[in-house]
């Protein structure tokens, strides 16, 4: 192994393959893939979603500009990475999030999680996840106890877009819990009672939650675009969601006392931030493993951690925490799951013949 490694590292022989992928192309492709989720967030949460996304993007661009100039790296706002961070961070906030949560959370994400470690490519953790965890701990009351209903039901009752947007963040309306919180507190009986166990609504995103994470449909559209453009590979999203589905089917009934193999896998897959986390944050190219086998291990561990936190932990949701934890393990995973070098296997077969 050591010998092969030395040989591969000895020099870069021609011919070289020219790849059409550049940092800018990949980043702007991800930004395009995030647009459907943004449209869905405005559709379900109205002007509040626009406000949060606007503040987040403005803060992100400004912070990126300042940090780029402070560290003398020039102006880096056009490579698109800060747009991804700002959009993802905004998608991770509840519709009633006050401005300071958006501003300081995204400043933390861009300035400390990304730039303090050297900028794009050197961040040890997905910046949006770092920012989300920061605001969850800093303003836990705002971040976990105040979910607004979607504006669709109000619009059906005859309100217009702006009225409904204002109504869902008024103190009287911020009482309904997200599906996962209800499951944690009241169990499945509570979900039935509040009408939250509607798979169609969960799929299209017509449930209380963070603005960009509720609509599995919009996220899937973005992911299909990224897969077609070959920006991401399938293994992390598919295996992460698959592991959560399998484990929540096996163990999901335990907290309710209904025994093994009674969990509601579809509910666990569609609710919370799992789709957004698995499709856009866990497989961020900087903070996910390099090799195929490494990614498989990484995705399965993510699924195990998320299910454990959701079912048995103190928090209703565990996607952000598990991604942050596994991001930290990525350098270790990369050491153990190295891809074999091209032609390495044939060299082993040849060896006995020569001797």
């Amino acid at each position, binding site marked *: 192994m050591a010998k092969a490694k030395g040989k591969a590292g000895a020099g870069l022989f021609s011919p070289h393959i020219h790849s059409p992928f550049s940092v800018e192309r990949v980043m702007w492709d991800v930004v395009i893939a995030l647009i459907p989720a943004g449209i869905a967030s405005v559709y379900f949460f109205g002007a509040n979603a626009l406000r949060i996304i606007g503040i987040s993007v403005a803060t992100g661009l400004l912070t990126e500009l300042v940090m780029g100039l402070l560290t003398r790296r020039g102006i880096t706002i056009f490579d698109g990475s800060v747009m991804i961070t700002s959009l993802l961070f905004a998608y991770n906030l509840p519709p009633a999030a*006050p401005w*300071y949560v958006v501003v300081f959370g995204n400043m933390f994400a861009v300035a400390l999680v990304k730039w*303090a470690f050297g900028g794009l490519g050197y961040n040890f953790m997905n910046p949006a996840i770092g920012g989300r965890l920061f605001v969850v*701990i*800093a*303003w836990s009351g*705002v971040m976990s106890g105040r979910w607004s209903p979607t504006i669709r039901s109000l619009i059906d009752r005859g309100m217009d877009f702006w009225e409904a947007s204002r109504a869902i963040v008024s103190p009287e309306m911020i009482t309904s819990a997200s599906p996962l919180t209800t499951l944690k507190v009241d169990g499945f009986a509570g979900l039935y009672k509040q009408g939250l166990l509607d798979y169609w609504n969960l799929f299209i995103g017509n449930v209380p939650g963070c603005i960009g994470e509720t609509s599995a449909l919009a996220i899937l559209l973005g992911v299909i675009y990224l897969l077609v453009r070959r920006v991401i590979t399938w293994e992390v999203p598919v295996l992460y969601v698959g592991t959560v589905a399998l484990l929540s089917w096996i163990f999901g009934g335990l907290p309710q006392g209904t025994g093994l193999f009674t969990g509601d896998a579809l509910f666990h897959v569609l609710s919370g931030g799992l789709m957004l986390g698995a499709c856009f944050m866990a497989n961020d190219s900087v903070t996910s493993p390099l090799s195929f086998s490494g990614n498989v291990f990484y995705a399965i561990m993510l699924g195990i951690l998320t299910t454990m936190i959701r079912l048995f932990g103190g928090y209703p949701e565990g996607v952000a925490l598990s991604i942050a934890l596994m991001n930290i393990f990525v350098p270790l995973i990369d050491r153990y799951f190295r891809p074999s070098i091209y032609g390495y296997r044939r060299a082993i077969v040849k060896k006995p013949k020569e001797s």
Partner: protein
Amino acid sequence: MNAWKEFLKGLFKENPIFVVVLGLCPTLAVTTQTINGIGMGLAVIFVLTMSNLLISLLRNFIPEMVRIPAYIVIIASFVTIVQMVIKAFAPELDRALGIFIPLIVVNCIILGRAEAFASKNPPLLSVMDGLGMGLGFTLSLTLIGFIREVLGSGTITLQLAGIGTVIDLSQWISSPAVVMILPTGGFVVMGLLLAFFQYLRNRQAEKAKANKA
């Protein structure tokens, strides 16, 4: 003149927290309020100065082989005095600092100064060194505590044993970020201040280089 230099070096050039990076355990743990930094700092100043003095006086009597146990005995006796005084006169500070008062015994700064300075220098210099290092420690802890308390709970507590006041900033900071008074915030503030002090020192070094050339 020389003694004054020994005193000043602890404040910035060899600041125990931001330059030598010693004694981080109490630094991160107790700095949730401004006053905790002052209280902890006063305790450390007393212990550091007195133990430096005593170790410096005894430096020719303590055999090389048992010097560490001897230092520990000297430091521990002063820490015991401090702990009893705090328990008697400032019980709320005792509750806030908790285990970190007895842990001053094993504080790296105190043992470090005993080993690196007091055991090799005369009493006057050792006392000045202890005062300077202690003051540097106090100022650093107060600074960290001040930043964390303002951002994390929106107050400035300057109340010790019933004297002083608590300044309320809730007018300007209506919803403080609780994370700053949790351990996470401690590490974040500590890291940013370390980076800032490193930046200042780098700039100073560059200036000195430019002056020489």
